Structure formats: C-alpha cells, structure tokens
C-alpha cells in the first residue's frame, strides 16, 4: 500500500488527530514507529495511551508550526500556555523533539 499523505495520532482518551505525515516525521519517535514492519507503518495510525488529548493537540500544533516554518529564518516562537508547560515538556521528551536531534539538521 502506498503511504498516505496523512497519518492518524490517537490520544489516551481516544481522540484522533489527522496530521500531515511529513510534519509528524519531525519526531524521531513517530518516524521510528512508521518505519518498516511495525503495525503503525501499515495502518498509518499511532496510538499514545499515556498522552492526553490536550497535550497531543499542542504537539500536533507544533508539528504543523514546525512544518510551516521549516525554511524560514528567525521564526516567531509558538505560544505555550505556562500551565501545560511541564506536561508538554514530558511529551517533547517522549517524542524526542530535542534540538540536538540529528534529523532536524539539514541534509
């Protein structure tokens, strides 16, 4: 099956987020899940039982924000509400969205 342009991310509560595949690939975690023989790769559907919907929503926000601004210099920062900062930090760690991530470096 040819890879679809979109993939579905599912939160702990079962909320589904349909995300542009290329945008979601910024996360090495998701990239790993979508590789080769895993079931996620076949269905294009990744479930994250330990991540709640409002955090996943913000992460998805970030994916698209990253995708939109990936060619720009001096990008304005994305707003992050202080109250969900810690949760989001955990999620960022989980999704491996670190600046030292080699995938983020340009080929």
């Amino acid at each position: 099956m040819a890879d679809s342009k979109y993939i579905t991310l599912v939160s702990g509560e079962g909320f589904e987020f349909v995300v542009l595949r290329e945008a979601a690939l910024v996360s090495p975690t998701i990239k790993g899940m979508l590789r080769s023989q895993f079931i996620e790769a076949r269905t294009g559907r990744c479930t994250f039982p330990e991540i709640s919907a409002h955090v996943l929503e913000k992460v998805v926000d970030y994916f698209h924000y990253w995708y939109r601004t990936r060619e720009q210099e001096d990008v304005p920062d994305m707003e992050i509400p202080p109250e969900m900062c810690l949760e989001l930090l955990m999620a960022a760690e989980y999704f491996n969205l670190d600046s030292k991530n080699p995938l983020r470096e340009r080929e």
Partner: protein
Amino acid sequence: MAPVLYEVSRQTRQRRISHNISAHQIRLDADARRRAAQNEQGDQVDENNQSNDQTSVTTPATTPAVSASPAPVPATRGRRAAAAANTQDEEAREKEQKAIEKIKASKKFQKRKRYLDSDGEDDLARALLQSSAPLPGQQENCENCGTRFTVTAYSRNGPNGGLLCSPCSKEASKDDAAKSKKPKRATGGAVGKRRQVQSNILDGTYSLGAKSLMTLCIETLAKNIDLAEDLGDLPSPIIDKIARKLSKHRLLDSRTLSLFLQPTAEEVHVYDGAKLSSDDFIRIFQTVPGLKKLKIRNGIHFKDQVMDYLMSRHIELEDLYLHGANLISEAKWKEYLQKKGHSLRSLRVYFTDKHFTDGVLELLSTTCPSLTRLKVSHNQAVTGAGVAAIAQIPTLRHLTLDLRNEPHSDIYVDLLSHIGAHLKTLSLTRVRDADNTVLDAIHTHCRALAKLRITESEEMTDAGFVRLFKDWANPGLEFVDLQKCRQLDSAHPRENPDGLGLCSNGFRALMAHSGKKLRELNVHGCRHIGADAFEDVFSPAAATGRVYEAMAKLEISFCEEVTDFVVGCVFRTCPRLRELNVFGCMKVRDVRVPRGKILVGVPNARGMVIEGDDDEEEEDEEMDTSA
C-alpha cells in the same frame, strides 16, 4: 440624531425579515427620513428611543408614516402604553430642564459660553448635563451592578457613561489591561530581522526553521519559574537544561534552587550561584546526600564554612567544579584534600585568586590517588613549583592550565616526560614563554593525546611545529587550538625571518597528521600561514583525494591570506562543517555559503549569504539594507 438612528435600525430589521427591498420599503424609508427631519426641527427633547417612539405615535401631525404603516398591532399596543409613558416622559423632561437651568447658572458653563453664540447655548448645556457626573463624596448607583456607593475621584466611567463602584471598576480595568496589551512582534522590520539573524549566527544558535518543542517549553518555563512549585519527575537532562536556561537570566536564587535539588540525584549543577548564600550551598549537601558531582559557577559564597560543612558530611565527591569561589582559604583547601581527596577523580578550579596555591597542588599527588582530570584556570598563585608537583600525579589523563605566572618551558618538559604518555588532554593557555622544547617533549612522550591546546606562544617556531607533527606516533588529534601562536613585532609586523608561530609548513604538517580526525581546529591569528598552504590543505578533493570527514568547526579568523577561494575549498573538503569563522579575513568578500553551514564574521554589511534556491529573497534583503 438619536431618532434617525433608531428608525434606520428598525428599517434594517424589517428588511432582514423580508429579505428583499420592496417599493413599500422604500416609501417607509423616505417617510422615516422626513419624520426625522421634522423631529429635529421641532426641537423636541427626545433623548431616549422609547420616548421618541411614543411621541411620534401620540402626535399624529408628525407621524403620517406610522399611522399608515401596514402593522397596526404594534401601533395600538404603543398607544395603550402611551399614557403612562407620557407622564414619565414629561417628568423626565422637567427634570432635565431643571438640570439644564442649573448648569446654565454654573461657572463652568459661563466660562465656556463666552466662545459660543446664543444658539449653541442649549446644546452646550445639554452636553454638560451628559458629562456631569456626581461629584466625589456623593452617592451614586453603580452602572454595572446597581449597588449604591460613594463616588470618589478615582471612580471609573462605565461603558454607557455612568459611574462604576470599586469592585466593578477593578474588573473593568482588568479587561482594559488585557485589551491594551499588544501582541509582541518577533522582530522589528526588515533591518531588525536581519540584525537578529546575524546575532543568532554569532551566538551559534542560528538555524533554519522553528526551535525545538523542548526549547520552547523550557523557555516558557524559565519565564514562569515563579509559578513552578515542583518540577516533578522530569528526566535529569531536561532539568539540567532548565537550570542552564535559568542561569542565563540569572534567575537562580534560594527559592528556585530547591527545584533542582532532588534527594536521589548524584549530580548538582549550579550554573550561576551569584545569588546564593552560604546557607544555600549548605542546603545542597543537606538535601542531596548521595552527591557525587558538584558543579558551581559564580559560587562566591562557597566559602570556608561551606567547606567545613561538606567535610562534616558523608558526601564523597568525585567531581568538584568550582568557579569564582575565591573566599576559600588555602588552609581549607588543604584540609579538604586531606579529608576527602581520596574519592576525587576530577578537580576543576577557576578564578580563585591567591588561595589555590602551589602548596595545594603539591598535596594532590598524595591525597588524590584516583585523580584523572585537573584544571586550574585563571590562577594567580600557582608557579613553576606547583606545575612541577603535578608531574607526580601518574593517574592524570586530562590537564588544563591557565596560569598568570609563567613557568619556564623546562618545567613543562619535565611534566610531560613524567605523565605525558597517558595524557588525553593537554591544554596550556597563554604560555608566552613556552618554546620548541615543549613541542619536542610532546612529540617524544605523548601517545594518547586527542585534545591539544597551546595558545599565545611567542617563542615556538614553524620548524618546531613541523617537528611535532612529522612522524608523530600519537594518533590523529580531534581538537587542536593553536590560536595566536605568532610573531609579535609591531615594528616589522610583516616580516617573520625566524618563522615564529604556526606558519605554512607547520599547518601543512598538522593537517597531514591529524586532518582526518580533526573535529575542531582553531588557528585564530596565525597570520603567517600562507595562501598556498591553505590551498594545498583544502584544495578540492578531486585533485588530491583529501576530505576532512570529521571537521565540524573551523576557526581561521585573522589569517590574512584566506580568500574567497580558500573558503569555498573549505566548504567543499569539509562535508560535516557546521561553522567557519573568518573574522578579519579581509580578502573574503563574496562567498556563497552552502545550506546548513554557517560562515561567521564576513567583513561586509550583508553578512552571510546562503547558497541555494532563494536568491531572490536574498536580493530583497540586500535592497532593504541599502535603503
């Protein structure tokens, strides 16, 4: 004016219901306009909409349209209410008339009247009536919640012109504050943006695209750190990042320190302890009993009493990094090493004025049997005797010295002959008097070096460097910093007959020996490296088959011979290169930088130009700067 507005709005409402405009509609509109004009002429005091409606119904002479309107039901209903409204209306009018009289008599009115003719008098009086609110000290009903309150000079006006009681005005000002806060702009226009980009390049934080989510979170957290009670069970690398970010803004104080002290931790890094007191440092040892690695920068109040406490506990530090703790006395250093030195593997001491002395270094060989890393930086007390004592520490693998006193080269030679064979790091900063004998000693003794730094030597010569790197049994170095090893003669700056400093041949020998493995090279200010040497070393891979795979950072600032061609060659032969510094290379004029690489210090106003498909954009920017 009010009646006209009212009529129009009613018309539009009707129109919205019928969804189209009929001839009847148009006639109604015209009637409404005519009536409005009449109302104005009649000089009636029709202040509010309701009274106007009633008046127009009760005086048939002025309201032909309404009586002829196709909706008689509202009209009759209006007539029924008319009687009551009429009396109400009259009362209101009387009241107003009285108020106007009063205003006309007032001083304020007399003053203003001077500029008006008699026609404007009534209007002015009415305007003043509207604006005149109860004076401070009087009672008034709040416009918003209706409660009765005492008017003060600070009472606010509500949205409809009335006054607000104090709880309501607080609410109102809160709303105002939220509204007036404008969204912050990321940068200020084209020039501001360009400036920001250049600033990022210099900071080394330049990258295309957005910041990582983690960075964004950490920045937000640092901004709101006063809200945080506890960082929860975040992984320690993240906590470390938060700590770094906080220190950047000098936000680490007694309160925020607690966030980073986890009882189970083995490491505590305080990147900026300038606001911490001695008690805070003691608290670190109280909260984290299993501490193994301690790093404190700007720990001014890390003094004798803290050392005393540390010695009284069962904490066996393996790694101690102290920066700026110059209140610890020499006696206390010695005491500490004698009591706790046996567990120390790494000791790094920066900026400790006069108290970290030769005597302390002499103790190390006996008290610290497992010391592998020693760094003494910005030290004014240590002399040759102390350096000679370091030679007695056979376990040492990493040695960094940045001393203000300058020991003789013989001392270094002796040091290297003792411990050189196993050294992985040798860093000698600001060694003006060190000469070729040191280089020869490195050549003879060192077999495991990966990092070498010798800076600001005025004695070493090109031939010395050639001897060092030629047929050296040491494997290729990964990090080389030979900055400012050059001839310094202000009378004859161009001539260098003795070949002082790192020159062409030394550079060729260095790259021949270590080029393949070098990750970072710094030859800042080695002015006598010639263009031919650069071209030989970095000439395109096709010709010589040379590629410097590992090279990530290259600093060739103030090497006069670097040209556009050399820079282009560097980009071609160093595929992994991230950053190239060319400050003061005045022959670099117009290089296109490949995507993903950074060229810092280009001597023109435009800065770095990225090679690639967005040339048009770059040209736009150029125009912006010239404008």
